[in-house]
C-alpha cells in the first residue's frame, strides 16, 4: 500500500481504505411507506440498509435479545451466527409495542451496542421529546418527513467519525513511524495542512512543536480539534448540530 503524505496512511496498519465504504444502517419504522422512503434515501447516499418494522425485530437482528437471556455473564462477543453488524441505527419514535425511545434506551444500556449512534425520527416536533431522546444518548433527532439533506448530514457525520477513528489508530501506532518520516512530514506541512501525528517520543528532531493541536483538515468534520491526544478508545462523539435541527419548520399547520 502506497504511503500517502498527508499523514493518515503512514502506518501500514491503517485501515483507512474502508473509511467511506459500506456504512451499514439499520432502519426501524412501522410504516411501510416510510421504510421505503428512508431505504431509498440511504441507498442513494451510498449506505447499505436493513429495514425492519419494529424495535423488537431490530433487537433480535442485533442479537441483543439473546444477550439479555443469557444467564451466564459471557463476554460481549457477538451472540449468534445471524447477528447483524451495523454502523448506525435510525428509528421512528412512535411505534406500537416498543417505541423508538425504548429501543434507544435498550441500545444505550447494552455494553456491546451502546457505541452505535442512534438517530430518532418523528413527525412531531416536540421539544420535550427531542430533549429526552438526546439525553438518553441519541445522536440526532430528525423531524419527518426525512429529506436527502438530513441523510447527507448523517452521512457526513459518519464519515467524520471514521476519520477520527483512523486518527486515533494512527496515534496508537505512531510509534511505528521512524523519525525520518516524521521529519519529511513536518517539512511538507509547511505547504499543506499539517499531518495528524502525535509525537509520543519527546526527542523529535523536528523544529516544529509537536504539541500543537492541529485544526481539523476536512471540511466535513465538525469544528472541534481532533482527539489526537486523548487516550479514550472511542472517539468522543461530537453531536451534530442538533439544536438547529430541532427547530426545523415543517411548514404544515
Amino acid at each position, binding site marked *: 500500500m502506497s504511503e500517502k503524505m498527508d499523514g493518515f496512511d503512514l502506518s501500514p496498519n491503517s485501515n483507512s481504505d474502508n473509511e467511506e465504504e459500506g456504512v451499514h444502517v439499520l432502519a426501524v419504522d412501522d410504516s411501510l411507506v416510510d421504510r421505503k*422512503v428512508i431505504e431509498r434515501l440511504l441507498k442513494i447516499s451510498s449506505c447499505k440498509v436493513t429495514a425492519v418494522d419494529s424495535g423488537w425485530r431490530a433487537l433480535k437482528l442485533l442479537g441483543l435479545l439473546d444477550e439479555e437471556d443469557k444467564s451466564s455473564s459471557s463476554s460481549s462477543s457477538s451472540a449468534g451466527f445471524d447477528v447483524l453488524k451495523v454502523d448506525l441505527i435510525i428509528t421512528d419514535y412512535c411505534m406500537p409495542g416498543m417505541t423508538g425511545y425504548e429501543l434507544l434506551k435498550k441500545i444505550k444500556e447494552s455494553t456491546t451496542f451502546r457505541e452505535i449512534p442512534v438517530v430518532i425520527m418523528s413527525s412531531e416536533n416536540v421539544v420535550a421529546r427531542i430533549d429526552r431522546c438526546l439525553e438518553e444518548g441519541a445522536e440526532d433527532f430528525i423531524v419527518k418527513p426525512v*429529506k436527502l439533506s438530513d441523510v447527507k448530514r448523517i452521512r457526513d457525520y459518519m464519515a467524520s467519525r471514521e476519520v477520527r477513528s483512523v486518527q486515533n489508530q494512527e496515534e496508537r501506532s505512531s510509534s511505528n513511524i521512524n523519525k525520518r518520516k516524521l521529519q519529511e512530514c513536518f517539512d511538507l506541512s509547511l505547504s499543506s495542512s499539517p499531518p495528524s501525528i502525535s509525537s509520543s517520543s519527546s526527542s523529535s528532531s523536528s523544529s516544529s512543536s509537536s504539541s500543537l493541536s492541529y485544526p481539523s483538515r476536512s471540511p466535513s468534520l465538525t469544528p472541534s480539534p481532533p482527539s489526537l491526544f486523548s487516550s479514550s478508545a472511542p472517539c468522543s462523539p461530537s453531536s451534530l448540530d442538533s439544536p438547529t435541527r430541532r427547530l426545523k419548520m415543517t411548514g404544515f399547520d
Partner: protein
Amino acid sequence: MLGWGVDRLRADMNRLLAMLFHQGVLDEQFLQLQQLEDESSPNFVSEVVNIYFHESEKLLRNLRGLLMDREFSDYKKMGTHLNQLMGSSSSIGAKRVRNVCVAFRASSEQNSRPGCLRALELLEHEYCYLKNKLHELFQVRPLLTFPNTFQNSDLFASRFGFSLVYIVTSDVKLRCADGSTESTGSWSDLRFVTMESV
C-alpha cells in the same frame, strides 16, 4: 398529428404538477421523492405512492368502521390510525390530506363523534381527489423521465396506438396501422404519423 411529441406531454405533466402544488395538494416532499429516482430505480415514486394508496385505504376503512359503530368510544384507537395516515401522507408530500388528518385528530381529542364524522367525510374526499390526480400524473410522468427503458416505451407507444417494434438505444422504430414502420431516430424527435385507438 405531427408535432405532438414528448414536449407536449411534458408540458401537460408540468401543468398538472403546478396545479397540484398551487392547490396545496402536494408539497416539496413530493419533489424530494422525484429526486430519488434514477435509472436504477425509475419507478420509485409510483411504487411508494401505490404503497401509500394501499395503506391509506385500509386506514380509511378502519376509521369509517370505527365511527359507524353506534357504540364507538375508542378515540385512542382512532388517534393511532390517524397518526399513521398523517405520517405517511407527510412522507409522500400529500399536504392537504395530512392537514385534514390534523383537524380530524383535534375532533378526536375532543371526543366529538359528529366532528369526527365530518372530518372523515372531508378526509375521504381529499384522498379521492389526490388519488385521481396522481393517477393522471403517473400516466404521463414515468414515460418522460426514462423514455429509454423498455417498459415505459412500450406503454408510451401503445397509448398512442403504435405497437413497438424494437428499440436500439435511443433509436425507436414504430409500426404504424398500415403495417409500415416509422423510425423516429430519438425520443425527442418523436412524431406520430398515424393514430389508431388502442
